[in-house]
C-alpha cells in the first residue's frame, strides 16, 4: 500500500530475490562463531555466583587446577569485564580453560568461592521503598527518574475534564532472549594481536568494547562475525569476546572456545524489563482525550543504564493529547541485567498504555478503535514536544484503518465480556493496537559501506556486519544492485563481518541496519557508479558519441546505456575490460531528508526515521480451562520501503509469533529470597514449540510510507513487528471482560481463571 508516490524499483522489493546465503544455511555451512578450529582449540567455561549481593573474598582453584585436562583458571583479576562485587545471583566469578568443554564445566564446580554476603533487594517494588537496601548498582539510590516531561498543564486539564479515570497496570513479563545459539566465542592471540570470532549484531561496536577493555590499539584487535544465532538485541555487546580473549591470554594465546551453557548463557546476558504504570486520563464523554498523566516504572535489574526511559514513546507520539505528563522511573534490583530486546521499550511500554487506553474506552462505554481514531495524530505530523523533529514516514493511522477492514473488526467487536460466546462455548475477543515506535534510524548514526567491482563486471558488497535473523547484509546487496543498475544475481556478498576490511555498517538492532547501513551502501554504490561511468564513456560503444559525459549515462540489467539513445549500451564486463580495480566507499546518516520535504522540514535537513506498526488479535478463551487460543493475528508494519521482500515477510510473520510468545508463553521463575533464577532452561522458561502455533492464522502486510530520510524511502522493520503483543492482552479483555494481569509473566490459564474468579 503506497502512501506516497515513489519511482518503481528494478531490484528492491522484488519477491523473487532469494537470500544469498540460503545455500549455506540448508547445507550446514552457515558458520557461526564456534564453527572453526576443530580439534585445535581449548574450551572455556564459567562459574557463576550463588549469592545475590556481596563481595568475593576468596577464590580457591586448587582442586580445579589439579584436574587432568585443565589448563588454567581465570577470575575477575584476569577478565576486564568481570567484577569483584556481586550484584546478582548468576554473575560470572571464575572460569576454567580445559581440553574439552566437559572437563571445563566439571572443573568449574571444583572452584571454591567465598563471599561476604550483603543485603540486597530482588523485587522492584521493594527496591523503591524508603529504607530499602541499596542494590549498589547506582551509588546512592535504587531509582532514577529517566524521563520527566510535561506538555502544557496536564493537572489542570485532567482536573477540568468531564471524565476522569485513574488506571494502574501491573508489571509486564520478565523474560530472557534465550537465543538458540548460546553466547560463545573463539579467541586467540598472535603476539600482541587478538583475533576473535563472535556472534554479533554490531561487530565494530564489539571491537570498540574489546579495545577499551584491554586498553589496546585498535589495529591489534581483529574481530570477525558471520552468522549470528538469533540476537534480538542480546548480541550487541562484546558477546563473550572479552572473556574468551582473557582466557586465551591466560594460556599463552592458544585458541579458546568459550561456550556458555544454556543456563549460564541465560543468567549472564540481558533480560527484558518488566514495566508497570499508573496512568490518569482526562477526557470528554465522546472520547476526546484532553489530558494524560502517565507514570511508568521499570525494573532494570543490575543494569544501571537499562534502556527503559523511552517506554512512554508510543503514547507520547501516537496521540494528539494537548496536555500531558510522562515520567519513567528506572529501578535497579539485584537480579540479572535488563537490556535490549527487540524494540527495547516499546513492547512493555505499549502493553502498559494500550491496556490503559482500553480501560478508558471501557469506562467511556466506547469501542477502543473509535477512541484511538478520535485521538490519533496524522501521518507526518511534527513531534508535539520537539517541533523541529518530524518523522520521515509514518503510516500508523493508515495501518489502523487497514487492520479495521482486513480483520472484519466492525462485525466482530463487542463490548468486553458481552455477547461473545462461540459455538464451542469459548469466549471470543478482538482488539487492535499500534503506535509510533521509538526505534528506526538509531538516531542517525553514520554508517559506511564498501563495494568492489570484479574484472568480469560483477560486484561484491563488503558489509561491516554479520547475518542475523533478518539477513541484514542481503538488504545492502539489494540497495547496491539497484543503485548500480545491476541484476540481483550479479551482485554478491564479498567480505563481511570482518572489522579489518569493512566499514562500520552499524547495529543490527533498532531497525537501524536498513536505514543506517543502507544509507552507507547507497552512497558507496553512488561513488562506484560515478567511477564506472567515467570509464564507460571511454569504451567502445559509447566513446564515439559526441560530447558524451557521465551525466548522459544510466544503467539497468548490468548494462550502461546512453539515456538519449538506449540502444547504445555496453555491459559492465565491457566497462571493466582493461579498467583497473574499482571500489566505491561511502557513508551516510539516516536522519536527513533525502527524498522529499516533510512537514516543516525542507530537503536535506534533520528528521527522524522511525518504525511504526499495528497489530490486531482475535482470540478464543476457554472459561473452564483458562486456555487462550489466538485464532487470527494480523501484523501491519511500515517499512518505509520494503527492500528485501522475502526477509521482510519472514520478519513480520515471526513478529506475530513473538507477540504470541510474549503474551502467552514467555516467563521466568525466581526464588525471591536468594535471587536465584529457577528457569534458566527452555522448558521452565516456557519457550514455545511448534505445538503452540496453529500457523495458518497469521497475516502480514507491509506498508510503504516512503520515509523521507531512508535509503530509497526505507526505514527498516526488524523491531516494530514484535511490539504489539498488547493486542492479545486486550483481546483477552474483550473476550472475558476481565483484565488478566501479566504479573511479570505470561497470561497462563491459571491467571485467566483467576481473573474470571474461578481460581
Amino acid at each position: 500500500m503506497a502512501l506516497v508516490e515513489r519511482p518503481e524499483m528494478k531490484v528492491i522489493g522484488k519477491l523473487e530475490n532469494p537470500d544469498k546465503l540460503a545455500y549455506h544455511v540448508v547445507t550446514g555451512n552457515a558458520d557461526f562463531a564456534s564453527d572453526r578450529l576443530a580439534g585445535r582449540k581449548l574450551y572455556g567455561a564459567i562459574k557463576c555466583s550463588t549469592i545475590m549481593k556481596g563481595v568475593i573474598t576468596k577464590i580457591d582453584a586448587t582442586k580445579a587446577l589439579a584436574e587432568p585436562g585443565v589448563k588454567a583458571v581465570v577470575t575477575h583479576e584476569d577478565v576486564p569485564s568481570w567484577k569483584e562485587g556481586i550484584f546478582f545471583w548468576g554473575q560470572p566469578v571464575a572460569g576454567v580453560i580445559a581440553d574439552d568443554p566437559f572437563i571445563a564445566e566439571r572443573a568449574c564446580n571444583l572452584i571454591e568461592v567465598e563471599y561476604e554476603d550483603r543485603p540486597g533487594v530482588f523485587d522492584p517494588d521493594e527496591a523503591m521503598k524508603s529504607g530499602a537496601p541499596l542494590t549498589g548498582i547506582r551509588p546512592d539510590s535504587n531509582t532514577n527518574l529517566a524521563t520527566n516531561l510535561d506538555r502544557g498543564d496536564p493537572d489542570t486539564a485532567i482536573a477540568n475534564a468531564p471524565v476522569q479515570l485513574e488506571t494502574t497496570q501491573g508489571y509486564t513479563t520478565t523474560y530472557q532472549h534465550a537465543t538458540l545459539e548460546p553466547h560463545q566465542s573463539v579467541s586467540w592471540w598472535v603476539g600482541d594481536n587478538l583475533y576473535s570470532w563472535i556472534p554479533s549484531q554490531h561487530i565494530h561496536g564489539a571491537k570498540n568494547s574489546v579495545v577499551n577493555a584491554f586498553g589496546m590499539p585498535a589495529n591489534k584487535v581483529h574481530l570477525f562475525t558471520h552468522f549470528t544465532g538469533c540476537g534480538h538485541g542480546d548480541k550487541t555487546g562484546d558477546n563473550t569476546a572479552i572473556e574468551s580473549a582473557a582466557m586465551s591470554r591466560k594460556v599463552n594465546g592458544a585458541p579458546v572456545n568459550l561456550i556458555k551453557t544454556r543456563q549460564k548463557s541465560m543468567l549472564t546476558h540481558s533480560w527484558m524489563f518488566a514495566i508497570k504504570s499508573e496512568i490518569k486520563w482526562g477526557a470528554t464523554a465522546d472520547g476526546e482525550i484532553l489530558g494524560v498523566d502517565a507514570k511508568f516504572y521499570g525494573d532494570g535489574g543490575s543494569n544501571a543504564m537499562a534502556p527503559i526511559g523511552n517506554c512512554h514513546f508510543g503514547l507520547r507520539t501516537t496521540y494528539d493529547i494537548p496536555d500531558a505528563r510522562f515520567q519513567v522511573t528506572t529501578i535497579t534490583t539485584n537480579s540479572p541485567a535488563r537490556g535490549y530486546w527487540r524494540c527495547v521499550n516499546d513492547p512493555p511500554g505499549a502493553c502498559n498504555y494500550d491496556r490503559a487506553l482500553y480501560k478508558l474506552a471501557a469506562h467511556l462505554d466506547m469501542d477502543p478503535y473509535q477512541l484511538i481514531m478520535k485521538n490519533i495524530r496524522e501521518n507526518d505530523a511534527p513531534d508535539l514536544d520537539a517541533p523541529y523533529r518530524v518523522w520521515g514516514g509514518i503510516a500508523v493511522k493508515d495501518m489502523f484503518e487497514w487492520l479495521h477492514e482486513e480483520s472484519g473488526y466492525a462485525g466482530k467487536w463487542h463490548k468486553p465480556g458481552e455477547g461473545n460466546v462461540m459455538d464451542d462455548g469459548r469466549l471470543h475477543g478482538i482488539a487492535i493496537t499500534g503506535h509510533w515506535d521509538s526505534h528506526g534510524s538509531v538516531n542517525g548514526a553514520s554508517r559506511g559501506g564498501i563495494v568492489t567491482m570484479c574484472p568480469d563486471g560483477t560486484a561484491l558488497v563488503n558489509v561491516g556486519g554479520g547475518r542475523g535473523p533478518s539477513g541484514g547484509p542481503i538488504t545492502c546487496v539489494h540497495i547496491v544492485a539497484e543503485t548500480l543498475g545491476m541484476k540481483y544475481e550479479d551482485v554478491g556478498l564479498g567480505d563481511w563481518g570482518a572489522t579489518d576490511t569493512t566499514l562500520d555498517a552499524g547495529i543490527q538492532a533498532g531497525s537501524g541496519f536498513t536505514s543506517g547501513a543502507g544509507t552507507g551502501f547507497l552512497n558507496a554504490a553512488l561513488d562506484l557508479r560515478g567511477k564506472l561511468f567515467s570509464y564507460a564513456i571511454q569504451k567502445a560503444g559509447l566513446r564515439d558519441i559526441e560530447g558524451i559525459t557521465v551525466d548522459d549515462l544510466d544503467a539497468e540489467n548490468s548494462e550502461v546505456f546512453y539515456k538519449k539513445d538506449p540502444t547504445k549500451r555496453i555491459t559492465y564486463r565491457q566497462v571493466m575490460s582493461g579498467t583497473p580495480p574499482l571500489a566505491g566507499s561511502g557513508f551516510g546518516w539516516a536522519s536527513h531528508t533525502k527524498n522529499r520535504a516533510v512537514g516543516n522540514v525542507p530537503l536535506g535537513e534533520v528528521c527522524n526515521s522511525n518504525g511504526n506498526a499495528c497489530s490486531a488479535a482475535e482470540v478464543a478463551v476457554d472459561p473452564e480451562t483458562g486456555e487462550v487460543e489466538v485464532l487470527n493475528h494480523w501484523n501491519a508494519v511500515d517499512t518505509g520501503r520494503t527492500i528485501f521482500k522475502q526477509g521482510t515477510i519472514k520478519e513480520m510473520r515471526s513478529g506475530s509469533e513473538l507477540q504470541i510468545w510474549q503474551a502467552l508463553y514467555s516467563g521466568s521463575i525466581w526464588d525471591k529470597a536468594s535471587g536465584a533464577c529457577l528457569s534458566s532452561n527452555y522448558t521452565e522458561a516456557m519457550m514455545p514449540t511448534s505445538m503452540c502455533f496453529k500457523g495458518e492464522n497469521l497475516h502480514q502486510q507491509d506498508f510503504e510510507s516512503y520515509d523521507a530520510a531512508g535509503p530509497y524511502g526505507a526505514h527498516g522493520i526488524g523491531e516494530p513487528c514484535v511490539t504489539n503483543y498488547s493486542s492479545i492482552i486486550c483481546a483477552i479483555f474483550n473476550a472475558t471482560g476481565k483484565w488478566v494481569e501479566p504479573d511479570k509473566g505470561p497470561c497462563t490459564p491459571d491467571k485467566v481463571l483467576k481473573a474470571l474468579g474461578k481460581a
Partner: protein
Amino acid sequence: MSEIEETKQISRRQFLKNAGIVVGGTAVGSSFILAACKGDASEVTKTVTVTSATATFKCPYDGQEFDTFAALQAHVEEKHQEGDAVTITKFVSPYDGKEFDTLEALKAHLDANFVSAESAPGIVSFVVNGKPVTLKVEDYWTLDFILRDRLALYGTKNGCGVGQCGACTVLIDGVPTFSCLTLGIECGGKTIETIEGLSNGTNLSPLQQKFVDKEAFQCGFCTPGFIMAAKALLAENPNPTVDEVREAVSGHICTCHNFKNTITTIAGGV
C-alpha cells in the same frame, strides 16, 4: 613389530600415536598406543594397529575363508586337528601377511600387534554420511561434540546441551536423535547422518531445495535440526499434513520464531 614400554606411574594418559582423527579407509592401519594394566597394577603400553572390521582369514588345510579369526578358529577346532602343523600353506595374518605354522602362533601375533576397532577401549567405529569412521573418544564425549570437534562437521548445533531444543538432531540408523544426549562411545556400528550428508556436492536434496525456495529459515541456527527431523518424517510419511509436521518437530525450538514457515514448508513433502 610390537613395542612394549613399561611405565612406573599409574597414568590416565590416553593418546594416539598418529594423533586425532582417523576417517574412512585411513582408519585401518593407524597405530596407537594402547594402555593396559599388568597384574601388579602398573601400566603397560604398547603400540598396536587398528584393524578393519572385515578381513579374510584362510584355513590352510582346506582353503576355506572366514571373516574373523574367531570363525577360523572354530572351523579349525571342529574340522581339523588343532596344533597340527601345516606344510604346504601357512596360517597367514591378513593385516601384514606374516605366516605362522600354527593357529596359536597366529593368535599370539594378532594379540600382540593388532586390536579390532570394535574391541579396543575408547575406540568407536561408525559410519557418518556414508563414510566409515574410527575414532578414539573419551567415554563422556557426546556425539555432537565428536561430530563438531573431532570430525569438523559443524552443521550439527548445540543450543541447550540437555535435549530441549532439537538443534543437535542427527539421524542414527534413520531415527532422529538428540546428539547432545547421545554418548559417542555408544554409537559403535551405527549409521549416522548429519546435515552435511544431505546434499550431493553442489546439488541440494529436494528437501533442502524446498527450504531454500520457501525461505524457511531466519538466522539458520535451528535449520539443520529441523531439516534432519523432516528427513526422518518424510521417509515414513512422504506427504505429511501440517498437524503431522507440527508433532514431528515439536521437539525443536526456533527463537527467531519461524515456526509457521518451517512447518508449512515441510508439509506436503517434496
